[in-house]
């Protein structure tokens, strides 16, 4: 009899664990959204931030976040996809392959602050880029590369072998097979991975503190000449992103509405991260159903 009681007790403990975890998430999201969204309105999203006065917005920070995200993806997606193709298709079991696998593992487990320090040293100082979008994006590339490599390798490996063999049997060369058969078949998986990583990049702050900088110009959204220092497109200007803004406002802000700005920014940040996550999931599911034929 007592074994039954112990069993039930254990079951309830496991249920409790799952409940705690789910409740934590629900509370977190609920808290951020209810607390934050009341501070978010159109003028908050569309006005310049203020360093000392009330009523600053997040227009430039939001723009910078997206700009850095896009530049990072431009760097890291081609590199990462090609690296993943190497591991899935070209790597023979050798020392070199081992070194690459270890490198991917090391890169993916590096603390983001260490990536930021490396970026500060190499991109900001040695390469002379200064605190800039491009230095931030290069640091984030280091951080994002292993994720894309892994996702690509996994997606290509999950393409049925038959498809590849059929293509090779038609006399199509290996690289052409990769380009026209494997990558298209693996594309949905890769896209899902890229979107998930985009959510991570969008929220990353530690690697950007020392690379993209802690300040931003008040951008002129009518000057699209990328060499103008106030142009939104200028990749060589320092650019505080939304997540860095939350950190900075919280730790050094002197404006009277610090809490409102921080919670409002957090709500906006979370919404975008959720959008990336949900889009990735939806795309993943649609494709899964298509491939497996289950409705």
């Amino acid at each position: 009899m007592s074994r039954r009681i112990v069993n039930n007790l254990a079951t309830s403990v496991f249920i409790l664990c799952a409940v705690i975890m789910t409740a934590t998430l629900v509370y977190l999201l609920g808290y951020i959204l209810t607390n934050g969204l009341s501070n978010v309105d159109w003028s908050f999203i569309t006005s310049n931030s203020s360093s000392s006065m009330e009523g600053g917005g997040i227009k430039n920070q939001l723009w910078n976040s997206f700009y850095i995200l896009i530049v990072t993806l431009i760097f890291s997606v081609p590199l990462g996809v090609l690296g993943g193709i190497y591991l899935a298709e070209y790597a023979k079991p050798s020392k070199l392959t081992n070194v690459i696998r270890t490198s991917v593992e090391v890169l993916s487990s590096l603390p983001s602050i260490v990536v930021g320090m490396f970026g500060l040293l190499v991109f900001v100082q040695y390469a002379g880029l200064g605190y800039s979008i491009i230095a931030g994006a290069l640091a984030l590339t280091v951080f994002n590369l292993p994720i894309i490599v892994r996702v690509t390798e996994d997606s290509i490996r999950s393409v049925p072998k038959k498809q590849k063999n059929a293509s090779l049997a038609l006399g199509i060369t290996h690289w052409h097979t990769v380009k026209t058969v494997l990558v298209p078949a693996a594309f949905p998986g890769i896209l899902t991975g890229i979107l998930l990583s985009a959510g991570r990049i969008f929220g990353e702050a530690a690697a950007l503190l020392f690379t993209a900088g802690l300040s931003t110009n008040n951008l002129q959204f009518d000057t699209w000449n990328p060499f103008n220092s106030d142009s939104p497109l200028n990749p060589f200007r320092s650019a505080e992103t939304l997540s860095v803004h939350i950190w900075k406002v919280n730790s050094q802000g002197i404006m009277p509405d610090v809490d409102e700005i921080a919670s409002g920014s957090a709500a906006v940040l979370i919404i975008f991260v959720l959008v990336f996550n949900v889009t990735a999931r939806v795309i993943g599911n649609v494709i899964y159903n298509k491939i497996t034929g289950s409705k």
Partner: protein
Amino acid sequence: MDNAQKTETNNHRLLKKNGSSSKRNESRGKVLVYSSAAIVIIATLAITIFLGYKGIRTFFVFDVNVWNFLTTTGWDGTENSGAFSFIFGSFAVTFLAALVAAPLGIGSAIFMTEIAKKWGQKVLQPVIEILVGIPSVVYGLIGVTVIVPLLRDNVGGLGFSLLAGMIVVGVMILPTITSISADAIKAIPQDIKDASYGLGATRWQTIYKVIIPAALPSLMTAIVLGMARAFGEALAVQMVIGNVKGLPESIIDQAATLTSIITLDMPHTTYGSVHNSLLWSLGLFLLIMSYVFIIIIRVVSSRRKV
């Protein structure tokens, strides 16, 4: 005649396709793929070399004593600075966070794989993914606005404390531990479980005597990966831990970690000064630790049975 001509042009086209141009394409593809792989290695090497160089430099250029640096407290930005309190703080936050997250994470993993196999997975999988996706500054912000005041009112102290760091980082590494544990438990062959149930064992007995021992190496891997993430976490910890440079006397005392001190001091030091150089040594310590975590994971998972 017309047909023969067609065949010939066709042949010509095919030959051309299979001739030198496709060979060139083939090798161009190879070059692209191999150079991308090389960039991955170069990036890793570059990080190791540059941080190694900057970190070790402190001990030669400024004559800082390594032993002194690692084992004494007192951080004033001079040659006599010791980083022990930050090293202690980092390890304390890491172990405390694992203490929170490991039981909760493994418990949730068992729930979604053994207890509610169908809908448990459906509910918890998105929960895990969203928890992973929440940026660390947002965790930090919630730590500052919710957990710190809560601790200040109910536990005592300032609220900014090791305890606050433990809670915030514990939640942050929870999804990592849960998802890897769940994968490990799912990988256990159904036969083993069926054999246990067949002998009349209850679910708890099966979990405790069969599933956990069989998945143990993978569960350990999950915990170590979570700890690696906790050790390197910067902003969320920095926001809630108080950043006091002495050793904490209790769990409700303020403390500092390696990452939090780098975050705070880096912008205020001049490039090339002793203080700045000391921070690079802390960075090197973080890098070495992430190698150590990888080695631990390799050792642990080499004992994996499933």
